[in-house]
């Protein structure tokens, strides 16, 4: 009941009224007798505050006189009053309405063009093509033909193989798929070339994909020797055994120095090389590391120097011959691995102790590795092969 009353009153308009007087209840009863609905009655100081339909107020004034009460309007509420207040602010309302209309109309134009997937196509060229197809900021959406543009872009731009366009609000998104180039190894394979031995090796495996093989696995090939003749291309896997060797020495006694953390500072003023003023005493340390910081360049006759003495203690380690050998082997192996190409695999190792003294162990490590020995060497115009059919010296290979 009360919610229906309130709902209806909102649309017809209602008043918040304060009824003052000796007996405001009389006013309530007179209003009831006239069929005027009242609601939200609250006793306040000086009377009763309540709500009533706006249209009933005129007759209420008569009732108030009869009941010797006085009604005061505290507030006018509901849709008619809201509209009246809005009409009073007509210019503001119009501005708000026009702004909304303007924003709505602006939504029918393209304001942004976003391109996704562009890497190789030049931006200016793409912009030019898009603008020509009507994809540019400021275009009304009803003039856009995205279907046609998506078909035209790959035809006009050879780098693009596919274009997809869609509109999201005021933005047109252009998605591009560009032509992919052949991977480097396939590109190289399309150039006339021979495959030669990159180093002296025992050829173990020769898989020829393209070209004419000139050697067979199991033979020893020399650096620069042509393994596969290109016809005119050559593509092959040539794996062979290669030997590496190195010599390392490992001292059996080692000393590791470390800082104890004790420090002493000495500050001094130098004229030329002579200290004329010095602050701080020299360090009491037996061994120390000295750091000198100069607050003027070395050529300056007057210099302020700060000397930092940091105490150092040496710790002696002695290695057993077996440990020294193991360490030496590891060091030699890491040295050799650095010389090997990627993909090389150590097949066999041979360690030879060259000298064994109380202070030193010297060893030689020989490693047999299996690795790719084929090297692609491009053919030049007019040449028969990579090296004109002859085996070149080491220098010739570097150029290839």
């Amino acid at each position, binding site marked *: *009941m*009360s919610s229906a009353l309130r709902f209806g009153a909102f649309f017809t308009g209602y008043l918040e009224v304060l009824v003052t007087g000796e007996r405001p*209840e009389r006013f*309530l009863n007179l209003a*009831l007798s006239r069929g005027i609905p*009242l609601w*939200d*009655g609250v*006793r306040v100081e000086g009377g009763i505050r309540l709500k009533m339909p706006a249209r009933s107020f005129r007759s209420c004034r008569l009732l108030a006189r009869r009941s010797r009460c006085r009604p005061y309007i505290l507030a006018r509420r509901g849709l008619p009053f809201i509209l009246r207040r809005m009409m009073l602010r007509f210019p503001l309302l119009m501005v708000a309405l026009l702004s909304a209309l303007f924003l709505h109309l602006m939504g029918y134009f393209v304001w942004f063009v976003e391109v996704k997937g562009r890497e190789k196509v030049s931006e200016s060229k793409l912009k030019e093509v898009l603008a020509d197809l009507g994809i540019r900021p400021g275009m009304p959406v009803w003039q856009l033909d995205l279907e046609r543009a998506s078909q035209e872009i790959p035809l006009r731009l050879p780098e693009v193989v596919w274009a997809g366009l869609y509109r999201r609000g005021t933005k047109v998104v252009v998605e591009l798929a560009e032509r992919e180039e052949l991977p480097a190894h396939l590109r190289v394979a399309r150039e006339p070339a021979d495959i030669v031995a990159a180093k002296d090796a025992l050829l173990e495996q020769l898989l020829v994909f393209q070209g004419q093989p000139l050697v067979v696995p199991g033979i020893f090939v020399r650096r620069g020797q042509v393994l596969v003749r290109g016809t005119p291309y050559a593509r092959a896997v040539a794996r062979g055994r290669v030997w590496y060797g190195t010599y390392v020495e490992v001292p059996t006694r080692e000393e590791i120095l470390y800082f104890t953390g004790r420090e002493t500072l000495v500050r001094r003023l130098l004229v030329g090389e002579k200290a004329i003023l010095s602050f701080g005493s020299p360090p009491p340390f037996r061994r120390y590391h000295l750091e000198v910081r100069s607050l003027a360049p070395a050529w300056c006759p007057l210099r302020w120097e700060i000397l930092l003495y940091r105490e150092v203690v040496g710790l002696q380690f002695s290695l057993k011959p077996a440990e020294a050998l193991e360490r030496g082997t590891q060091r030699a192996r890491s040295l050799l691995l650095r010389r090997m190409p990627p993909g090389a695999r150590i097949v066999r190792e041979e360690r030879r102790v060259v000298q064994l003294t109380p202070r030193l162990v010297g060893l030689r490590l020989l490693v047999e590795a299996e690795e790719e020995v084929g090297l692609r060497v491009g053919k030049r115009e007019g040449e028969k092969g990579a090296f004109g059919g002859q085996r070149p010296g080491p220098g010739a290979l570097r150029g290839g």
Partner: protein
Amino acid sequence: MKSRRRWRRRLGEILDLPQDITLDLPRVTVLGDLQVLVENHRGVIRYAPEEVVIAMSGGRVAVRGRDLGLTVISSSGVTITGLVDAVRFERFP
């Protein structure tokens, strides 16, 4: 007066009519201690936050409580809300 009332009651019983209609009684609906709805009333006699007195035929209904408010006042009924402590009927002699 009393005999008329008795006759009305008898008639209502015979015809199986609701007694609030035949006897012109107020219908008081109490919703917990939060709301009292008084229908078939004769007006508001007194309204204070602690007590609301409603006129009815042959007497009055007094609702006592705290922070009482008249949520709806219409000819069909008066709705009183607040913290209701007591509803009392006072009959005229």
